[in-house]
């Protein structure tokens, strides 16, 4: 590592090596990460065996693996297939995510642009945001019936608020001097929005998206808890109520893996769309 120390400047520069070198720099960290996982799993298995812990309290990793193998090797048409239920939850989450983001971002920009309207509506938005969403989930079933709609709406509701807040914050973060300069140069409102406001807001929007992508899945799961015939949430509840704790853990593993993948995806998306924004290069291994 090079280091330049000056009176007012103390900056460390990373070497701009080749992609191979950078990859090799990362390898030890990933290996360490993997070793940690192996140690954790081995310790868990040993604890269950040595202390005779009941499967109702803590199933062993091998039991969880049994559930995962069974779940992912069942035919797609079987109600025991994790792929099938994952597909249902993923679809609900995706549609809810897109809908919630679209409405949240548009609403955020609108409320930020028309500030007076924003100030009038903001207390109600905050009040609704504070409501425990799981309390309204059963009502969604009564109002919207079964099927995917109530889960999509739950997902969209959970996504809406962080996107609204982050969009408003993004809008307000735009340097007013840039707006003034653009106007002086004859920019139209449309150009102001597409060329300055939206790009400037992107880091804030992506901060919201990082939360929203996981909340979308949580919303779908919550919706499935209260009335569903398919989906990972339904399966989780079924396993829990039938005291099949190994199955519960298996679903939690799947959800964790999906959340991790979505997080990585969002980081890549942020790097692509906000390439100018400075980020810690090795954050999350991306």
């Amino acid at each position, binding site marked *: 590592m090079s280091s330049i120390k000056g009176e007012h400047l103390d900056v460390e520069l990373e070497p701009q090596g080749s992609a191979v070198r950078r990859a090799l720099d990362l390898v030890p960290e990933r290996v360490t990460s993997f070793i940690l996982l192996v140690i954790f799993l081995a310790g868990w298995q040993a604890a269950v065996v040595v202390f005779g812990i*009941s499967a109702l309290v803590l199933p062993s990793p091998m039991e969880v693996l049994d*559930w995962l193998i069974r779940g992912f090797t069942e035919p797609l048409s*079987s109600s*025991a297939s994790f792929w099938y239920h994952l597909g249902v939850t993923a679809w609900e989450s995706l549609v809810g995510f897109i809908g919630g983001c679209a409405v949240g971002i548009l609403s955020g920009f609108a409320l930020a642009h028309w500030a007076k309207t924003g100030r009038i509506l903001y207390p109600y938005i905050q009040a609704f945001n504070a409501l425990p969403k799981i309390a309204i989930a059963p009502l969604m079933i009564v109002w919207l*019936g079964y099927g995917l709609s109530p889960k999509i709406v739950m997902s969209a509701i959970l996504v809406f608020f962080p996107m609204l807040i982050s969009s408003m914050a993004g809008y307000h973060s735009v340097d007013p001097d840039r707006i003034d300069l653009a106007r002086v140069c004859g920019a139209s409102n449309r150009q102001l929005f597409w060329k300055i406001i939206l790009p400037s807001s992107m880091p804030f929007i992506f901060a919201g998206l990082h939360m929203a992508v996981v909340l979308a899945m949580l919303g779908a799961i919550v919706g499935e808890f*209260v*009335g569903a015939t398919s989906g990972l949430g*339904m399966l989780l509840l079924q396993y829990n109520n*039938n*005291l099949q704790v190994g199955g519960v853990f298996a679903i939690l593993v799947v959800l964790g893996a999906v959340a991790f993948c979505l997080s990585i995806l969002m980081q890549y998306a942020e790097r692509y769309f906000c390439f100018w924004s400075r980020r810690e290069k090795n954050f999350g291994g991306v």
Partner: protein
Amino acid sequence: MKSRIYSSVVALLLATSSYADAQNLTTFRVVKANANLNIGEDVFMMAVPKQLGYFKEEGLNVELLPAQGGAQAGQIMITGGAEAASILAEAILKIRESNGDIVGFYTLKQNNGFSIGVLPGSPIKTLADLPGKKIGFGQAGAGSDQLLTRQLRNMGIQGNFTPISLGYGAQVATGVKSGQVDGLFFWDSLYAIMSNQGLKLNHIEVPIQDELAGFQLAFRSDYARKNADKIIGYCRAMSKAYQFALTNPKAAVELFYKEFPSTIPAGKDLSAAVTDGVVILQAWLKSATSKLPGGTAPGIEFKERWENSQKTYRDLGVLKGDSDVTKAYTTEYYDKCNNFDRAAIIAQAKAMK
């Protein structure tokens, strides 16, 4: 890979919809009072009649929809989300007090099957030992703890127990094992599940349940007026399956697992899973039918029990108790639901190994 999955899903959807259309089957939705599939009423309300073609014989394509409890099930049905609902009798009375159109017409379970469960060696031997103890409920304040209190008062037992909400799931078993609660107040099939997993409990009966109207199948009267044939069709198919399950619970469990493979435990041999399932089903059926008057087919209900339910829950403050209880139920469908060749069903069940 993605296109294969997509085309499989599309093919499956098309096949299902075209199959139903080809059969000219009418969709009949039943919303049940719990959110997950388990061995109990789901065996004969859905799995057995579907697998053996009883629904098809009645021209029905039945969907079983989950709900978070009987109140939500009733809500969904009266707002048109389903054609029938499984629901507790007191929930029917409660909904009717809010002018909800709901009528019980078939008793799925004569005794709801709740009992006190305690660890062997527990100092709780009878209901008289409950005062001063911590008792675990699914949800304290939802009615079952008040019912247990009423049982104690009826027996002249003063003093209170402390109700603890445990929810539903593994924490119920761990709650009693760890001593966080001194006993549980849960139902037969859940105890059977715990027994299968190695937790054997001693049970103390709560006889007040024999005096109250049992777990019901209900409809909206405005729907029944125009669609009595569908109500009877579903009920008859379900009654056949009920008889089948009573005759051969092992075959019934196998059919349940065939219909709902997601309920089969992983890492367990199917025959062992069936054996466990039979234990659960038999526990459920014992509560459901052991108090039936001799030779009576399942489904019957009595005015006295409905009146007792209204009186009991009025005294507990759950009901206002001012609605006409005779309008909350009907016995008109009982004979029609049981109008089938019972001997043939029994023979069919016995023939299945």
